[in-house]
């Protein structure tokens, strides 16, 4: 129900278009019903007039038949155009909103969510929602309107017949869909989840192919994938069975409605209650009135899938941000003194805190290094400063005020990070660099590249700055990717420079040369170097050891 309300309220901005689609849809359905009903009456009347030799004004019905035919054709086109346009606009809006809501969650609020699973939500799940508007909401609304008019029309002639046909409409439009919905909910949900798992498996398998082959796990992966795939297919066949049931049910009910018209109408005609031409007219009316309810069972069958998809989307969009911004954030000063006091932090699901009672002062313009073994919490320190995680105890002060009083984005604006794991986007060198500074000119990019000692390489590439780096930067070597990341951080021109193992993956010569290029850039900047290697320490003012969650000064 929650999902239904969300989908319904989302449509608010586009309701005039959806309503227009509805009006067209009702007009189309009514026109077709009227066309065939009128034709049946016309034929009977003409035949009767022919038999009795009486006069019959055939101009009006003949013209009516042609007009209705045109109305139907135009109505159908309008309905499709208006409703599809509105629905697609809604989806586009939702996709952007999904990403905007997702961004504040990363990384603390996402847990171990798989990126391919998030992709499934952002792409396939959202795409699925157009069914809600086009195949569910609109046809249901149209069927309701058509049913209303149809009932009134039938009750003019015979109330019992009207009630009987109404019963059949309800059967096909409500009870059958309800049954199909109940029966289809579980396989529908399983199908969506199964497809999402298959995407994860495919992404995993393709990226880990060498490992899979080397460790003989390719067969196992194939079996798991095949099992998922067959599970999904099985559910799809199950759903198809329900689809078949709906289709057959509609055909049967429509036939029965026509039959009911005969059953009730024949005595009326014989008793002279109805003019004879009414019998074929109502029989045809009853038959064709099912065009309106026909799409409903299959549409409701989709509801299982739609609900799962909506719930998966809401799971992200409705999740509270793990690190909320203050209501009235303070302005972040240009020049920053950072001070960590008694900071304690434990990762979720881990028993021991990684930082415990940590004190560290990072005065503006000073360079500080924190040395520590792997797993000692060095990177955690960085995540706390960049506001990716929140300290559970203690405070981080920024110019004497709690860091929580500032907006996280403002804080990050002042920090440039070269982290241990470089992520490069599947885009050009320039695009990857401009991430840090969208307005930077090519000259500026190359200047930063020169500072990071990678200018020559970039120039040597066939397309220079516009050369693609490949997915995850695979066209670059580890060292080249690292230098590009350094250049990217330098372009940001932030007063605080956070270096997390900046020379990891470089050989000794490269390490030394990178430090030489970093040196002038560290002037007038607050620097925090996090490392386990002794290189670069000579450029630092203070060096601490991180051990057991606390800092020890090195003398």
């Amino acid at each position, binding site marked *: 129900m929650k999902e239904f309300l969300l989908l319904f309220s989302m449509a608010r901005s586009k309701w005039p278009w959806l309503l227009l689609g509805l009006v067209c849809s009702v007009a189309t359905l009514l026109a077709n019903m009227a066309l065939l009903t009128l034709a049946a009456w016309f034929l009977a009347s003409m035949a009767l007039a022919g038999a009795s030799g009486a006069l019959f004004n055939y101009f009006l019905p003949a013209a009516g038949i042609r007009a209705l035919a045109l109305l139907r054709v135009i109505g159908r086109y309008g309905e499709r155009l208006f409703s599809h346009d509105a629905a697609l606009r809604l989806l586009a809006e939702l996709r952007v909103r999904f990403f905007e809501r997702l961004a504040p969650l990363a990384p603390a609020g996402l847990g171990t969510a798989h990126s391919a699973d998030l992709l499934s939500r952002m792409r396939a799940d959202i795409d699925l929602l157009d069914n809600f508007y086009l195949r569910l909401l609109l046809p249901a609304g149209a069927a309701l309107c058509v049913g209303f008019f149809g009932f009134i029309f039938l009750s003019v002639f015979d109330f019992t017949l009207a009630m009987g046909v109404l019963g059949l409409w309800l059967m096909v439009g409500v009870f059958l869909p309800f049954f199909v919905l109940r029966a289809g909910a579980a396989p529908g949900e399983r199908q969506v989840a199964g497809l999402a798992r298959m995407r994860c498996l495919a992404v995993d398998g393709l990226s880990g192919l060498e490992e899979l082959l080397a460790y003989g796990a390719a067969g196992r992966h194939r079996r798991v994938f095949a099992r998922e795939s067959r599970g999904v297919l099985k559910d799809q*066949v199950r759903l*198809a069975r329900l689809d078949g049931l709906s289709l057959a049910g509609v055909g*049967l009910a429509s036939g029965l409605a026509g039959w009911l018209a005969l059953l009730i109408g024949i005595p009326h005609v014989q008793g002279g209650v109805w003019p004879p031409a009414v019998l074929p007219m109502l029989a045809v009316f009853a038959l064709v009135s099912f065009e309106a309810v026909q799409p409903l069972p299959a549409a409701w069958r989709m509801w299982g899938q739609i609900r799962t998809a909506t719930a998966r989307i809401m799971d992200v969009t409705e999740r509270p941000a793990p690190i909320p911004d203050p209501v009235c954030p303070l302005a972040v000063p240009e020049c920053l003194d950072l001070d960590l006091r008694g900071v304690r932090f434990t990762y979720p699901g881990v028993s021991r805190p990684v930082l415990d009672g940590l004190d560290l002062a990072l005065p503006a313009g000073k360079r500080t290094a924190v040395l520590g073994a792997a797993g000692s919490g060095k990177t955690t320190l960085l995540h706390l400063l960049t506001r990716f995680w929140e300290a559970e105890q203690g405070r981080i002060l920024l110019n004497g005020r709690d860091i929580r009083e500032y907006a996280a984005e403002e804080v990050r*604006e002042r920090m440039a990070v070269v982290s241990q794991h470089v992520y490069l986007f599947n885009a050009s060198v320039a695009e990857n660099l401009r991430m840090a500074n969208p307005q930077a000119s090519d000259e500026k990019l190359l200047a930063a590249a020169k500072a990071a000692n990678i200018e020559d390489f970039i120039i040597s590439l066939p397309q220079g700055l516009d050369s693609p780096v490949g997915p995850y930067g695979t066209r670059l070597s580890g060292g080249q990717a690292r230098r590009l990341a350094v250049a990217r951080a330098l372009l940001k021109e932030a007063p605080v420079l956070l270096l997390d193992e900046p020379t990891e993956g470089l050989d000794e010569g*490269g390490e030394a040369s990178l430090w030489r290029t970093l040196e002038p850039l560290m002037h007038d900047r607050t620097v925090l170097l996090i490392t386990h290697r002794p290189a670069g320490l000579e450029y630092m003012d203070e060096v601490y050891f991180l051990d057991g969650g606390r800092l020890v000064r090195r003398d």
Partner: protein
Amino acid sequence: MPPVPPTASEGGLFKPPSFSSKNWLREQARPATPLLSLAVALGLAAGMLLIIQAGMLASVVHDVIFEGLGLDDVFFLVLALPALMVARAALVWAAEQFGFRAAAQVKDTVRMRLYDRLMAGPSRLRHRSTGDLAHQMVDAVEGLEAYYARFLPQAALAALIPFAVLAFVFPLDLVSGLILLFTAPFIPLFMVLIGSRAERLNQRQWRRLAALSARFLDSLQGLTTLKLFNATRREAEVIARITDNYRENTVSVLRVAFLSALILEFLATVSVALAAVLIGFKLLSGSMTFQTGFFILLLAPEFYLPLRALGTHYHARLSALAAAQGIMAEFTESPSQVKSGSSRPRWQSIALRLDNISFTHTLDRKTVHQISADIPAGSLAVLVGPSGTGKTTLLRIMLQSLSPNDGRVMVNGANLAEVEHRSWMDHVSWMSQEPFFFQGTLLDNVLMREEADLSGGMISRLDQAATLTGLGRDLAVLPLGWHTPIGEGGDGLSGGQRQRLALTRAVFKGGALFLLDEPTAHLDGESRETVLAALRSLAGRHTVIVASHDPRVLEIADKVVELRNTGSDP
């Protein structure tokens, strides 16, 4: 019955660029032909019942109105009608199912063939986005469904049922028959005229969708990086722009599709209206009985119904054609460049000889230049050289992920190119620079092949391996120990822990040859010494080849292979 009866839309009027993907789609249907034929036969039978039903209805109404008969007189027919309807419903239900079963069969076959194809050779994939490939394997295959389940059976019915209807109408009324006969061919004709344009648009749209997927995956995987640069809002704008662009393109594809539906609808509706009016005049003049006229009026919509249904499924066909193009491309692309032979040796120890190996990748410019070296069995060899000289590439050549452009790798005197890949993999423990981990437990990621069902002996072997690499110390502080869950790509582990976990996996497998890329990266002091000691103790029993720029590794090595810059760039 042929699997696909030729409708005009499939005919040779035009030869759009996707001609071969049509053939491909039909070829895939071959194994499902019995199921599809059954679906068509049942659908046809249901159609025939509908004609009979209309005939009975017309006869009853005629008898009542014109012969003055009552309910008792037509009782038999009135009773027979519901029986007919129930039979028809059963046929419709069955036909629908067989169509879907056929589609499921085709999807399963295609998907697993595609899986096998994509998973066959790693080197080919290194420059493709995994998001794009996963899309082909999962969603593109799903995109085929409606074609087999609905379009193909409907195409057959669209060719058969109208003829059945005509067979009844012509003897009764020539004019109505002619109206139907002459309007019918226009429907497929217009479908082809408009369809071929829609098809081109739609194919472009499908490629856009794949690109969109890849782009989104990149944004999601790099989300933390985007946040560090406060670029998420800019990225949201980019996403807004590309989704909006995608939407506009979708609408333009739909507009063409709707236009074809419009023409279809126009022809069908107007001819029914025309037939009704003409029949009306015949009835007035008395040259036709009401029974005949009413029967034709009831049949006329049924004549167009299969054609109109085909129109609604035409979009399914377009999507399937576009999806098929993407899938076909994966099959036609040149197969894995790795040359792997068929010999299946079983070696206890491995001595390697690198014989003048060169490798150039035009895309990467990653180059290995004329490397020769002898690596005796049981030695600890180190590949050294400045970054970019192809240490990793050389390891991948020895892993058989890449084939050298020139030169040979000789294993115990045999050419590696002649050894079957799977058999070679039995000998190798591989650890890449960025080790890959699955979402699962630590245990899953060490065992890899076996299910997580453990005997005591296995546990002690696991613990031994963990102690050797230093992972044991990490396990001791984790409350769940081996069963600690980790996320995609080893999320939740520190750099050093990943390194130790990957090394433990390699040690646990215990291949005759260890190929390790930077095993001491991300490690410091004590844990580095542990790993160094582990390397030393592995050597002797195993041949260990390490790519490293760590001077401490050099110190303990038995053999150093130096890679140099080739000097002049090619």
